[in-house]
């Protein structure tokens, strides 16, 4: 078994604003080479905190209190700002959630796409532009020249997301963090984008950490999945196993609460109060044991 590309160990974090409330509780997960790993949880579970920790953009009110993010043999948490900058963009890239806010509305696409290429690869403008054009073709944009000279508002949401994906994969990173990349898109466009991410990922052997709240999306694109509840990993494994035979009660509850068009009576099962109580108790026990609970006084 080859070493994983990304290896998160015992990652813990607290919120300084909320009296040191724990946001992440000893999270452990690993993403292998060429693997698409889903990070699933509802809002507040801590998934974007993990993504931000990897990218080094944790907000000031959140503090990492322990753990390690191993990437290419180094702990990302221990790198200096300069070292981290060298790694980002070149080896780790981000596909953000909202394509309309991720692009600068007053700059043309070609300018924004060539930024990274010129900075990280040292390409001259002309070569960078050619590469950008090739990237747009790779993400199946039929009219790359037109798109290159367009401004973001002239493109549809799906188109913008393709541009962002092209930019992310363009530097041939080893790891791409996709932060809910299809949440803001129509469902038909979502399918196209998922297909695109998968094909790019397969072609380049990129590892992807796919953050999502949607179990359906995760089922279709992720090889393995980690289920997060209140900052704690409750289930982890091959997607096929986790979905077909979930072991943790929370995973089961999530699946039951999801409506399915092929099963008309699903989607109306709110999580029973007993389960919530049990989950809370489990977290409390974990905190007491691991010392990750909010401190008194």
């Amino acid at each position, binding site marked *: 078994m080859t070493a994983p590309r990304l290896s998160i160990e015992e990652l813990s974090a607290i919120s300084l604003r909320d009296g040191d409330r724990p946001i992440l509780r000893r999270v452990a997960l690993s993403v292998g080479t060429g693997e698409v790993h889903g990070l699933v949880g*509802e*809002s*507040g*579970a801590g998934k974007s905190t993990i993504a931000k920790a990897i990218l080094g953009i944790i907000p000031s009110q959140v503090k990492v209190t322990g753990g390690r993010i191993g990437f290419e043999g180094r702990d990302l948490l221990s790198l200096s700002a300069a070292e981290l900058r060298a790694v980002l963009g070149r080896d780790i890239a981000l596909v953000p959630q909202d394509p309309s806010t991720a692009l600068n509305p007053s700059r043309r696409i070609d300018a924004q796409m060539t930024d990274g290429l010129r900075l990280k690869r040292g390409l001259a403008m002309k070569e960078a532009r050619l590469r950008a054009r090739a990237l747009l073709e790779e993400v199946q944009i039929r009219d790359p020249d037109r798109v290159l000279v367009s401004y973001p508002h002239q493109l549809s949401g799906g188109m913008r997301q393709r541009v962002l994906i092209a930019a992310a994969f363009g530097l041939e990173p080893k790891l791409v963090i996709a932060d809910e990349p299809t949440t803001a898109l129509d469902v038909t466009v979502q399918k196209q984008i998922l297909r695109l991410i998968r094909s790019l990922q397969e072609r380049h052997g990129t590892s992807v950490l796919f953050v999502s709240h949607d179990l359906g999306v995760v089922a279709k694109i992720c090889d393995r999945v980690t289920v997060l*509840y209140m900052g704690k990993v409750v289930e982890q494994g091959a997607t096929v196993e986790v979905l077909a035979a979930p072991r943790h009660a*929370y995973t089961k*509850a999530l699946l039951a609460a999801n409506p399915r068009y092929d099963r008309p009576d699903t989607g109306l099962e*709110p*999580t*029973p*109060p007993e389960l*919530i*109580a049990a*989950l809370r108790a489990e977290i409390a026990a974990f905190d007491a044991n691991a010392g990750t609970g909010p401190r008194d006084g």
Partner: protein
Amino acid sequence: MEHWSPTSITDTGTQPHSVAARLARDPKVVCAGGFILFLILLAIGAPLIAPKDPLAQNLLMTTVPPVGFADAEPGFLLGTDGLGRDVLSRVIFGSRVSLTVAFVAAGLACLIGSLLGLMAGFLGNVVDALISRLVDVWMAFPPVLLSILLVALLGTGLHSVIAAIVVIDWTRFCRVVRTETMGQAQMDYVVAARTIGFSRPSILFREIFPNVVPVLIALLTLEMGIAVVVEAILSFVGLSVSSDTPTWGGMIAEGRQIVHEAWWVLAAPLAALFATVVAFNQIGDGLARSLDPVLRR
């Protein structure tokens, strides 16, 4: 909070937040507020508080320095001016003019501007077109010339100072209120009020206006600071009240001429002016800052 035990895993409420509470926590706003309050008391109680008659000239005691410097006289805390008048008493009485102008002029400008702004924003179409055109044309007039024209027509005095400020600054309120109103009119709760069947005037005053008020108050306090400065400028050039009544601007004009022999005659009113405007700005600033999160939450 709910009378079943919470059935949703991640559903939690937020803490109550009132604007007043948040403002009270900001030391700058509290100080500024305190200062304005103090000034108001000073202005109201001027005849009782001021140690001397501000108009009483004493040609034997001209240009006496403030207490603490050589040659000072005990009864004249801030010294006397070129005609032997007590600087402190004049500053205190000067606050009457400044505050009167601040509240009356800013208040009137606010009233007129807001009414027109509300109408323009809510009624739209022809009414909006007319009012907006009016504002555009009006704002094309150079404000300084307009004020001089007004004073020339109405004669010098507090009424023309107030008129000048109102005539020029109502447009500021109109524009802001119009924009806010239009923004509010887009909100779903206005649509909700329509579906429930409330009449248009009812919607304007129950739903829209209360949400415009906070911004209006912030603007009003800023306008008060502006009004104070405008009055000072007008009295500096002799276009304000008669030269008998002490005004800060007038004192600055006099003080400027004898600044080398009696710097305190200039410094005192200048300091008072400065402190007052800063105080108004701090309150307005604090209001603007604390209102945003409430509205955007």
